[in-house]
Every structure is written in C-alpha cells, then in structure tokens.
C-alpha cells in the first residue's frame, strides 16, 4: 500500500488553540483533575477497601457470580430435576450429575449426586441461565478458599448447605429478574 493510496484516510491532528499552545492552562487542568481524585481519596471515598478488615460492597448480590448453590423448594427437596442442561452448557465441564429415578411423584428424575468442581469453574453463570427450574444459582460469596483440591469439589449436600446459608440474604430470583421463584 502506497502512502497516497485512496483507501488510506488521512486524519489531521486537531489544531491546538492558543490556550493549548500556552501549555499553562493544560498544566492547570491536569493538576485540578488529579487534585479532585486526591482530595476525594483523602476524604475516605476510595474505590478499594482495606480488604480483610472491611468487606467490599457487592453492587447487586442477586446477580453476582460467586459460589454455587442448589436451591430447595418449599418442601425442602432439592429443586434440581437432573435434566443435565447445566452440565451441557458448562464451558469448563465442571458439573457432574448422576441422575436417578425420582422418589417424588411430581417429577421423573432427581440428582442422586451433583458435584461441582469449584476449581475448574470459571464462574460464567451459564449453568444458572440454562437451568429450567432455577435450581442452580450463583451466590455472592466471593472469597472461597480451601486447603486441598478435594475440599473444593462441592457435592450435593455442600451445595444445599450453601443455599441454607445464603437464602436469607439472597432469596431465590424473582420473576421480575427472570426467575420462577414462588
């Protein structure tokens, strides 16, 4: 391609006005911008927090993508119907479900075992989107730690206990948010 090729669009540098050429107004502009941020921080309005002492504020916990939970219905049964849609949608292949015939009359299947490898999970939230019965949801627990890899593989009981721990702060998603919670 030549420099005078008609496909090249030449953009002229914007001309500086007198204030720009004088440089001093721009100097003052730069200093005021940083001063605004500086004084804001000195008043304590920083974006970051002093983490272990102070928990970061999560904007909307209902749509935050943290540790998973398995929801329970009114009767305390696991809501999951073992349809495998989440496991199919999962790009990281971290969901492992073993289905079994349901002991209850209102559904055909239930998960005999439901494990999520929290280390493989990329917290994309596709499982939550795929779930037809709003059984799997991501909570706002962001500081998940463990001492071994085995510990980080969450089974059904653990996932249900996450629901018990978070159902107060984060109720199941309402229809307004696209959920089917009753």
């Amino acid at each position, binding site marked *: 391609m*030549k*420099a005078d090729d008609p496909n090249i669009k030449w953009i002229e540098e914007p001309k500086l006005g007198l204030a720009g050429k004088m440089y001093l107004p721009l*100097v003052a502009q*730069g200093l005021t*911008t940083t001063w605004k*941020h500086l004084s804001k921080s000195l008043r304590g309005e*920083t*974006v*970051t927090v*002093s983490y272990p002492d102070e928990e970061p504020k999560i904007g909307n916990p209902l749509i935050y993508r943290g540790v998973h939970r398995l929801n329970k219905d009114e009767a305390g049964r696991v809501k999951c119907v073992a349809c495998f849609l989440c496991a199919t949608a999962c790009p990281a292949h971290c969901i492992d479900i073993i289905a079994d015939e349901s002991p209850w009359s209102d559904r055909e299947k239930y998960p005999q075992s439901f494990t999520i490898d929290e280390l493989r999970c990329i917290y994309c939230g596709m499982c939550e989107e795929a779930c037809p019965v709003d059984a799997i949801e991501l909570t706002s627990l962001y500081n998940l730690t463990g001492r071994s890899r085995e510990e980080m593989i969450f089974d059904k009981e653990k996932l249900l206990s996450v629901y018990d721990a978070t159902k107060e702060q984060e109720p199941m998603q309402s229809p307004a948010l696209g959920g089917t919670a009753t």
Partner: protein
Amino acid sequence: MLEILIKSAVLIGGIMTAAAYFVLLERRMAAWVQDRIGPSRVGAPLSLLGLKDLRLWGLGQPAADGLKMIMKEEYTPSHVDRRLYVVAPIVILAAAIATYAVIPFGSLLPPMEIGGEKVGPIQLTVAPGVDVGIIYVFALSSIAVYGVILGGWASNNKYSFLGGLRSSAQLIAYELPLGLGILGVVLASGSLNLERIMAAQAAQGWYAILQPLGFVVFVVAAFAEAARLPFDLPECEQELIGGYHTEYAGMKLLLFLVAEFLHMITASFLIVILFLGGWHFPLITGEADATIISWPVALARLLVLHGKIFLVIVFFMWVRWSWPRFRFDQLMNLAWKIMLPLGIVNFVAVAVLEEIRHSYGPDESTWAWSLGIIAASWVVFAAAWLLTSVANPLVTDNRPRRDLAPLEVDSPL
C-alpha cells in the same frame, strides 16, 4: 571538626530517613490520586511479642521496603563489566549525597553552652561559607550523569546502554536551562554562596516573584534533572525494559533508586533556596543579616525552610500523576527550542532591570521602584511565553510526508 561530623551525621541520617519516608508518601499519593488506599498496614510487628500488631498508618513500610531490598539475592549477570558495574551505583549515590555539603538545611543556631563550653552561633550547613556553592552543586550533579552512563555501559546490554545514553543526553541538555535559570539569581543576589542568596532574598524579595521566567525555566529543568515525570525518560518499561539499571538487583539497585530520590530532594532544596526565599517568611523569621538570632527565630527558620521543601516535594509527586510524559524528541525540543531561549531572555531581562535600577533608581529602594521592577519582569515573562507559544516549536509531525515520492511500505521484494 566535631561540629562538622555531627552536622554531617545529622544531615545524612536526616536525608536518608526522609528519602525512605518520601518513598512511602509517594506511594500513598499515587494511591490517592488513583482512588486507592495505598500501603497502610506495616507498622510495629508486636505480634512477635504476643501482642496485637500496630498498624501506624503504614509508617513501617520504609523499613520493610529496605529489608526486602537487602534480603534479595544480589545477582550479577556474567556478561557485565564487573568493575564499572560495581562503581556506577557508588558514584551516583556518593555524588548525590556529597551535594548536601554546601546546601544549607537551616539558617543559624544561636550560641549555647555545652558542657561548660560556649559554642556557636552554629551555621546549619556542613561546609558553611563556601563561596562557590552553586558551582559545586552543579559539578556534582553532572557527575550523576556518569553514574547513569556507567551503569548503562557496564550492564553490557543494548537496552540498558540505550537507556544510559538517552538519559545522559537528557541530563546534559537540561543542564543548560538549569544554569541559565540560576544565572539570573546569581546576578541579582551578587553571590554564588547559597546562604547569602537566601539572605539576599530576605532583603529583596523572593526570586520566584522577581524573576518568574527564571523560576519556571529552573523548575522545568530541575524536574528533568531529577528525572521525574513528565521527564522520566531514563527509565521506561515499555521501551527499555527498565532503563540503565535493568541488570542491577538487591542493594545496588537500591543505591540507584535512593540516588534518584535524593536528586529530587536536592532539586526541591535548590528550588526553595534559590527561588522561594529559603528560610525567609515575612514577619516571623527575623532580620536577614543578623549574625546572632534567638531560639524562636532559629526554629521558625528551620520550620519554614523544611515546610517549603516538603510542599515542593509534594508538588513533585502531585505532578507525577497529572501530565503525560514527553516523547524523546519533544523533550529535546523543549530543552533546546523553548527552555534555552527563555533562559537567555530571563538572563538578559534580569541584567537590564538590575542595570536600570542601579543607574536610575534611588539609593534607598522605594515601593514604587520595587513594584515597577516586578511588573516589568512579569511583563517580560508573559511576552516571552506568548512568543514561544505562538511560534510553537513543540508540535512535531512524524507521519510520512505525502508530498515526497510515495513510499512502498509493504511492497514485495
């Protein structure tokens, strides 16, 4: 002798501690400007004694930083020129510290009695009364260039060498405007002695007000000499990996970094001493030419001087985050096409105004005359600034020229 030893101990201890804590302040300021909190945790590690740790707003951070640097492996690459490699950080730090021999860190201490012996009045300069004070400071600040270029050369690494070359070009280019900025001060005060320059300002007024053009030229050149943003070309991660100290680690790197910080502190000292009146503040700092001063006045002078220096350093750190840095050609343009002419204009203007005052002014300086001189120098400042802005040599166009024969950019060979 003892007096000099005590003074140098106080000074070296003082500036080293100050440098360490200014690193902390710099990091906190950087954090604040970026809406962060910054290092705020390292305090007294009382948990070693089984108590609760004290945070102390992060005041233990310098100790932790220093300890980290000392504990790091001092790795010497096999391809370096070993002798120069060791000498470079020593040269740069020694030159940076030796500068303080003639820089006053206060005014005077009144006479006092120590162990039944009359001492004083003590001048708060390690080597008081050096009549070539400024020239000495300049000589040593030029030696800093040797540290940089030796470090770059000894590293035996293309990028370090490029960094060393580039920064030596920068430091040498900006020494001219720096010198021209000072010439006006020397002319007006009639002395190269830093203490006498401060006393002259107490009598005449601060040179920042009397010679605004010289002040601006000097401050810009001082930023460049201290290699602070927006002029921190010596270091550049994107272009040079690290700069002239890429191959250094551990204590040697620490020496380079401390020397860089000391350059900034020296620059602040010089800005305050030469242009912002030094220890002088109207009404509270006593007679300018008194040889014996009382304790309150001595303390006031100390506080004023160090308060001003602190503010200038805060300004250095504040500027760091305010403006984008210069490209190298812009840096050189600024030095040779703007700062150098402005410096010469300032020098001529100061000389002419001084001559007018000497020849036609009244013997006792009157308000009208002083104000007239100040107004004239500000008019010169505005006119010179406007002229260089309109001429505007800072705008450079690096794009290929379309009026020349069209360039085959990616033609097959």
